[in-house]
């Protein structure tokens, strides 16, 4: 019998058969794992609320043929409770989970940095220290950066000429100089670009002090940038709510 142990964040659950669920977990050492949790939908299941999305769990898994099987689960941090208690946090958090699944396309390929980023993001979201949409945008930008898609904000994404150019071209990968600017580029406010930079760096005092309109513009650009480079739409983004 081949068993292994790992900790992870539950990203998604899908119903399976009468009372089982398939849980998708982003783990610290193994990467993204899909496993069957037997009987988890019964009210007297031994797993209880441990395998709900957002939960940070310590798992024991049994290697199966196509899907692994969860044999034991212990909660490390139940982030789901504080997140589901606030609707704006819940919608932002769901978009984080969906993105975490998309930026880890290969199952069982270790992605430690993505895991640590998600844990940090959920902890911040659950604490309610910052506006949930800001936490989401910071997470999305950094998840893209870890995946190799850092937006270029201080030099032209095409020719590399330095300077904070005013046009932002999603397909090019960031700001573009007047010479390289393709048709249909966005022209965000300078403050918006500064906010994006602050979110990437983790400069929270700057981000918390930003104006609503710049936050909104940032969210729009980040969403477009994310979905273009992942070549996939993130369904939850449509339902993310502002406070």
């Amino acid at each position, binding site marked *: 019998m081949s068993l292994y142990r790992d900790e992870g964040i539950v990203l998604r659950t899908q119903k399976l058969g009468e009372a089982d669920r398939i849980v998708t977990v982003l783990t610290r050492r193994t990467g993204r794992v899909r496993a069957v949790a037997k009987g988890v939908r019964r009210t*007297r299941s031994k797993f*209880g609320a441990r395998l709900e999305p957002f939960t940070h769990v310590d798992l024991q898994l049994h290697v199966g043929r196509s899907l692994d099987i969860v044999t034991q689960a212990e*909660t490390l941090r*139940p982030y*789901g409770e504080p997140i589901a208690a606030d*609707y704006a946090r819940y919608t932002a958090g*769901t978009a984080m989970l969906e993105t975490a699944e998309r930026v880890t396309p290969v199952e069982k390929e270790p992605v430690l940095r993505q895991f640590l980023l998600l844990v940090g993001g959920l902890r911040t979201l659950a604490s309610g220290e910052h506006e949930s949409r800001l936490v989401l945008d910071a997470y999305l930008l950094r998840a893209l950066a870890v995946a190799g898609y850092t937006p270029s904000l201080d030099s032209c994404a095409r020719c590399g000429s330095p300077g904070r150019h005013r046009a932002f071209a999603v397909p090019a990968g960031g700001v573009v100089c007047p010479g390289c600017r393709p048709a249909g580029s966005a022209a965000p406010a300078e403050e918006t670009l500064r906010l994006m930079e602050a979110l990437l760096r983790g400069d929270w005092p700057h981000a918390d002090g930003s104006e609503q309109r710049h936050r909104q513009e940032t969210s729009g650009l980040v969403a477009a940038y994310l979905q273009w480079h992942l070549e996939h739409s993130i*369904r939850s983004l449509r339902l*993310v709510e502002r406070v």
Partner: protein
Amino acid sequence: MYEGVVQDLIDELGALPGVGPKSAQRIAFYLLAAEEVDVRRLAKVLVEVKEKVRFCRVCANVAEDEECRVCQDPRRDPSVLCVVEEPKDVVAIEKTREFRGRYHVLGGAISPIDGVGPDDLRIKELMARLADREITELIIATDPNLEGEATATYLARLVKPMDIKVTRLASGLPVGGDLEYADEVTLGRAFEGRRLLDV
């Protein structure tokens, strides 16, 4: 592979939830061996259920008329409304014989990752029912999982300005279980919702 209609039957049965190819084959051969009258009765019920059953125009529970049995019953308390996700939750609550009010079936729970938002559920209809001022208490009985909790939070926030008492079903320890096996979230909820023992 079997010939013609036998294989068709196996394919149809195999498309049902929880029925795999082996089970489909077993059921098919059971039906072949069964008395004709029994099979005819099954076929008749299958057709009837699609012809007769529809969704109640008030609460969206399954019904055989315009309105379901609960909505038609004048003895049910019209001032208490219980919100559930699916018609089968109505059956589960009815079995308890504890609740004498009426129901509202949402048709699911808010789950952005599956593309289900508030507009995809029967929330507008719920708000219309609440607006007629007959209802004084709204009991939110969505599933005690993440989507159900988030849906409850969303509804509570929506109803707050309406001066209606909003309650949520209690969460806690299942009757007949051992305390040591309860997970932290459930046990924490049980502590939060503890009640006075008045003896």
